[in-house]
Every structure is written in structure tokens, then in C-alpha cells.
């Protein structure tokens, strides 16, 4: 897992990458994605910039509604209406994906930049054998090849993700969840893409399988020397897998930097509070969440989007949106505390809540910081969308995946007079 960031180990399968002056394989510049709604445009990805070198692993973390999945689809230029890419550039080896015509784009996808989607269960064709799905991908990009060559490539590719050759003849329903996700990974990386975009690839898997799948992804990535953008909501997973971390909040990239540095000394207040809210195995302590709620994108507070929840807030934050600035070697944060400070000062005492305070007092203290207007804006949006027949769901988390008591149980409970 501790691969050097710059070296690119090439396998016999890897296509030689053309030497470029800049070592960045993926450059995202000022990317903006907007969703059109009846009450105005919503900026789901707001002026995001970062670059990634070959062999690097970036973890993009964010809560629901932070724009991380919108980001993933925009990188592949898969944004669908009512969403649209409103500006910026996505440079893959110097070529702007956003300017390519449809044919050129089709050639680039999978061969140059590949997506490992969320929920592998729904990404495979249920009526095609695994080998046929993989061969489809190869033939679509490279043209017809002899059956023998294709069979060898399928076997090799399955071996790469740790699956037996027999899996090639199977149908998706014959595979376990972890095997399906690895199969999807095998298909996504069959053409040795330069960039792999993995959108919550393990969100529905158990922890043991999750570890296997992530380690498989890591090995493939090291093998072909591609860059990975891992999108997720699990800080632990990103800490285990990534070299770089990008923290998204309300559509903006609020912090970016090497994982070790960001985890040990976060610069953005949101990053710090997010890290501190994560339960740890090392010691039992009080669980402190972030007060308030993430803002509705339709009713963003003026200035910094995090300001209503931020314990460090000062006047400038409520009037002027902070821009990304350098806050250390290869570190970027969007916060007005910088450049006046070198580091994030300790949390103000008012936030370090009294652990002995009764529940209601703590709750009142937290509710007091909740910004108004969110529920109204969301309700308005939901109503509008419902009226238009849009299939968009209201604010909710996609972190599901574990089966619990089903709805039938709840009805059962109601029936019995609960």
C-alpha cells in the first residue's frame, strides 16, 4: 500500500504513456457544475481545481449534497440534465475532455479515463456472461481480435483482480457482492486507463470485503500506474487508501493536501470538525458532531458556506466567500483564517461542550447554531421537483447498504398498535 507517489511501475499489459512536460495526468481547473431548478441554478460543484500525477491516489470526501458524486460524473463528462457543466476544464494529459466531440469522447472513456461506479450490482448486464461484457469493452475500443487473444486477456484481467478464470463463464447473479465489484473493476481497467474514477466502490460491502476490494484496486493501480480519484464519505477508507485528500463542502473544495498532513493538522475548520466527529477505536471519548446542518445549495449563506456552523467565524466570513490559497507545502485551503495564521488555532472553548451537561442543554447549544431557511428552501425545491416529475430525491444520505429491518416490519409494528 505504501507505493511511492511518482514512480510508475509498468506491466506488460500497460500501454506506454506519451511523455509530457507536465507530470500531472489529470488537471481540473475551475470546474463548475450547475443543476437547473425552477428557483434558479444550483451550483453543485463550485470552482473546483486540483491536479493529480500518474500513480497518485486522491480521496475526495464529502457528506451527502457536498457535490462529490456530481464531481465524479463531471470528470467523466457524464453529467446529465438538469445538470450541466457550467465552466472550467478537465485536462487529461493536456486534452480538455469538455471540448471533445462525442466520438473523441467515446474513445477516451474507458481507454483513458474509467469509472468504477457505486453499486456494482447494478452496473453489470444480468443476461451476459462476464467474459462477454469484458470482450465488448475491448472490441468497442480496439476493434476485432482473435478469440484466443481475447480469452487470454479476460483471464489475465480476472487474475489481476484476484478472481478465478472460471468467473469468466459466470453470470452476474452467480457472484457475491465483493466478486461483482471486483468484476466491475476488472472491466473498468481492462484498457489500462490513465485515470480511474472510483465513486464509493465499496459502499454496500462488508468491511472485510471492502478491504479486499480496495486492496485489489490499489494493486491494479500500482500495476498500470494510473491515477485514482476515490470518492467517498468514509474518512477511514480514504485514510487507508489515498495519498492525497480533498474535502468538499457545499460544492467547494475547502481543503486539499497530503493525507498524513491533513489528518494530523487540518487547516480548514470543517475538516478538523469532521475528523473529530469520527468515532475512533483508540479511546472512548465523547462523540461530538458538527453543530447545525449542511446548507441547502439553493439557500447558501452569504460568504463562506461553512460560516453558520464554524466556531472560528468572524465578520469577513459572512460577507466574502474565501478563495483557495496555499497553506503549506502542496496544501490548499479555502478559509479566511489564512494567510494571517500559519495553523488552525485550538477550538474556542464555547465549542468544547461540557461533557457533563444534560442532553437538552447540549442540544439547545447546538440547535442555536442551526441556520434558518434550509428547510423552507428544501421543501420548496422538493415541491417544485415533484411537480415537474423529476426523480431527484430530497436531501438524504447514500451511505446505506446494510440491510436492516425492512419496511414490512414497520408496517407489522404499526398493525400491532405501536
Amino acid at each position, binding site marked *: *500500500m*505504501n507505493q511511492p507517489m511518482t514512480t510508475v511501475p509498468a506491466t506488460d499489459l500497460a500501454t506506454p504513456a506519451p511523455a509530457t512536460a507536465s507530470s500531472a495526468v489529470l488537471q481540473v481547473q475551475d470546474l463548475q457544475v450547475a443543476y437547473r431548478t425552477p428557483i434558479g441554478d444550483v451550483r453543485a460543484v463550485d470552482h473546483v481545481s486540483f491536479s493529480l500525477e500518474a500513480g497518485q491516489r486522491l480521496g475526495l470526501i464529502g*457528506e*451527502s449534497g457536498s457535490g462529490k458524486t456530481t464531481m465524479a460524473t463531471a470528470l467523466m463528462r457524464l453529467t446529465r440534465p438538469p445538470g450541466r457543466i457550467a465552466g472550467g476544464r478537465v485536462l487529461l494529459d493536456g486534452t480538455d475532455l469538455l471540448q471533445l466531440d462525442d466520438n473523441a469522447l467515446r474513445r477516451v472513456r474507458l481507454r483513458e479515463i474509467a469509472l468504477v461506479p457505486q453499486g456494482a450490482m447494478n452496473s453489470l448486464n444480468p443476461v451476459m456472461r462476464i467474459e462477454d461484457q469484458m470482450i465488448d469493452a475491448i472490441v468497442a475500443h480496439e476493434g476485432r481480435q482473435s478469440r484466443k487473444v481475447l480469452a487470454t486477456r479476460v483471464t489475465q484481467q480476472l487474475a489481476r483482480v484476484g478472481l478465478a478464470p472460471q468467473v469468466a463463464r459466470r453470470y452476474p447473479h452467480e457472484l*457475491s457482492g465483493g*466478486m461483482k465489484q471486483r468484476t466491475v473493476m476488472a472491466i473498468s481497467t481492462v484498457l489500462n486507463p490513465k485515470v480511474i474514477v472510483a465513486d464509493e466502490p465499496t459502499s454496500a460491502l*462488508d*468491511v*472485510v470485503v*471492502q*478491504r*479486499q476490494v*480496495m486492496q485489489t484496486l490499489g494493486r491494479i493501480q500500482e500495476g498500470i500506474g494510473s491515477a485514482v480519484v476515490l470518492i467517498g*464519505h468514509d*474518512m*477511514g477508507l480514504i*485514510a*487507508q*487508501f489515498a495519498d492525497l485528500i480533498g474535502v468538499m463542502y457545499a460544492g467547494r473544495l475547502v481543503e486539499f493536501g497530503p493525507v*498524513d498532513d491533513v*489528518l494530523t493538522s487540518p487547516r480548514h475548520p470543517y475538516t478538523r470538525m469532521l475528523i473529530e*466527529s*469520527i*468515532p*475512533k*477505536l*483508540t479511546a*472512548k471519548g465523547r*462523540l*461530538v*458532531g*458538527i453543530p447545525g446542518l*449542511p446548507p441547502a445549495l439553493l439557500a447558501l449563506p452569504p460568504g463562506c458556506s461553512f460560516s453558520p456552523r464554524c466556531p472560528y467565524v468572524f465578520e469577513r466570513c459572512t460577507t466574502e466567500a474565501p478563495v483557495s490559497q496555499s497553506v503549506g507545502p502542496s496544501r490548499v485551503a479555502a478559509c479566511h483564517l489564512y494567510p494571517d495564521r500559519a495553523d488552525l488555532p485550538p477550538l474556542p472553548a464555547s465549542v468544547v461542550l461540557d461533557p457533563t451537561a444534560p*442532553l*437538552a442543554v*447540549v*442540544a439547545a447549544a447546538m*440547535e442555536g447554531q442551526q441556520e434558518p431557511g434550509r*428547510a423552507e428552501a*428544501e*421543501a420548496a425545491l*422538493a415541491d417544485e421537483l415533484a411537480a415537474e416529475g423529476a426523480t431527484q430525491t*430530497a*436531501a*438524504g*444520505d447514500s*451511505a*446505506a*447498504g*446494510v*440491510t*436492516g*429491518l425492512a419496511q414490512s*416490519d*414497520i408496517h*407489522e*409494528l404499526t398493525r*400491532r*398498535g*405501536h
Partner: protein
Amino acid sequence: MAEQPIPTSSAETPLLELRNVTKVFQSGIRKTATSQTVALREASLVVPSGFPTATAVAGESGSGKTTMARLLLGFIKPTSGQILYKGVDITKMDREQARAYRREVQPIFQDPFEVYNPFYRVDHVLTTPLRNFGLAKDEKEMRRRMEEALEMVGLRPRETLGRYPHELSGGQRQRIMVARALMLRPKIIMADEPVSMVDASLRATILDELRKLNTEFGISLLYITHDLTTAYQVCDNIVVLYQGSVTEAGSVERVIRDPKHPYTQLLVSSIPQTDRSQRWGDDEIPTAEANVGRATTGCRFAPRCASAMETCWSEIPPLFHLDTDRAASCYLYRDAPVLPSEGIGQVFHRPHETPTPVG
């Protein structure tokens, strides 16, 4: 496994007890080896009376943890074994006892979206139980109790009541469910994955509320989860399930900080920790599909276990009592005394009697 008399270590009758409960799901009419799924095998669990405890039931998908929850709520009946509430079998309760059980054991479900009827205001989930149990004399008292409960979970009644579910966030909806449970003054709250659908920044707040229900309101907590980290933070004791069998049980300090059963070890080592000094190893994990050809009539974990011995494939390991705060169902510890399944309460320590942390 040899049947042994139930140890009477405690003179008091436990509040809730799962005694050697097995649940077999039958598919089809003919009883063959493949048509039967043992969802839970001789599982026991004790929630003592007298003092509140927080117990985690942890396991991955297919471990039987939701089956256990459904058994405890009386949705399904055990194939064998008993579920006792204050010493009375819940399947043999009279009407009055059943009503009391329904009120005193309150569930909190996983999905804060599905539990609401989108056509009703959120008040509906709060007023229904109050009406059913006759807990409020009039509308005024009903309103007062609802407001009280909402305030206890940190929601402002004025901004919550009268709204429709879609107007609230997942975190808020889940807190209303906590309020609903709280309003009925239950003895036990059974939360099945209460935060798996809630965002990270709100997750900590809800977990903290659950813990406070336990420590401040004296309500015992059964926390059913796949997440060992939150189990460690919220609970005192834990039962780890694997494919319907209890693999390890005891205090969270022992079981999670220093696991002994190979499965628990694998589970704990696979947790992605934010602490980068605790990185996942590079070791290949023995996988289930590697041994898929070999059926086990013994330990369910044998096909994935690196330490599996011949005995493991043919005989079901009993719980071995490793130390005062822990038992593990693994033949690696066959030298330790056998703990009968129904004696599982012996390895649960009381809160405040925290065993010294390991490591």
C-alpha cells in the same frame, strides 16, 4: 453441546433474556439440507434488570443480527429456545403483558426515510403511540409530551411539529424516532443500525444521544450494528455474530481492543481507521470462495479461517470462557472452561466496572 443447568449467578430475573434461541428459515415444503437456513443458532443474550446496560450486537450482512432484532420484537417466533421479558416468554404473554412489552421495548429503525408515511405530518408518528397506549389525557398533554421529547433530542418543537417528512433532513428524522421511543418511557431501546443512513457530521450527535439515553435516562440499549467502532464507543458489552452463530462475546474493551476469535480479529483488522499508523496490512485475506467446495458442519467460519483444524469442520465449537469478561467460540481455546450459551451474561461486565483497557 452438552446441556448444563442455567447458572444462577444473579438472584434477579433479567429484564430481557434470549435463551438458546435458534431460528431456521424453511424454503419450500420438503425439508432438505439446502432448503433450511439457520439464521440464528443457539444464541443467548441478557439485559439485566436493576441497572442500565448498553449491549452491541455486531455482525456483517447475513450474520443474523436483524433476525435477532425481529425475534426480540416478536415479528417472528423462534424455532427453538425462549425469549423472556421479566421472566415471561414473549410468545406466551397475555394481552396485558404483551402491551407492556410493546411499550417498554422500543425499536429505532435503520431507515429514517421509510418509517414515515409521506402523506402525514411527522406529528403522526408521535401521536399514534400516545393514543394507542393512552398516555395522554387530552390534546394539550399530548402536545406537551411531544414537545418535551423533541427537546430532549435537541429538536425545536416549533420547527419540527407540523412538518412533512420530506421537509426534514435524515438526521432530524432519525432524532424524531429517538424522541418517539423516549416519549414512551421504555426500559429498553433497540436500535438497528440507527446511523448507517445519516451523514458523518450528524452521526456523532445521534450516537451521543443514544448513549445519553443509557447513562442519563437509565434506559438499556441494544445496539445492532455492523460498525465495530461505534459499537465500541456507545456500548459496554458486545456479542459478535457470524452466520448466525455467536463467535465472541464480552466487554467491548476485551472483544474489540483485543479480539481472540479469528473472525473478530479479521473484522477488527479490516476496519479502515483514520489513524494512519494503523494501516491495513498487505497480507492476503483467506477468502470464502477459495474454500467454496468444502462444506462445514462445524464452525461456520472454518472455510475462511487460517487457523482451522480438522475438528472445526465437523464440530460446532461451544463458547469457551477465556477470562472474566470474554468468551469465544473457537477450538483454539479448548483448554478454557466451556461456558453454556445461556450463561453469556457472565462475561458482560456492569457499566462503571470498566475492565482495565488492553494494550
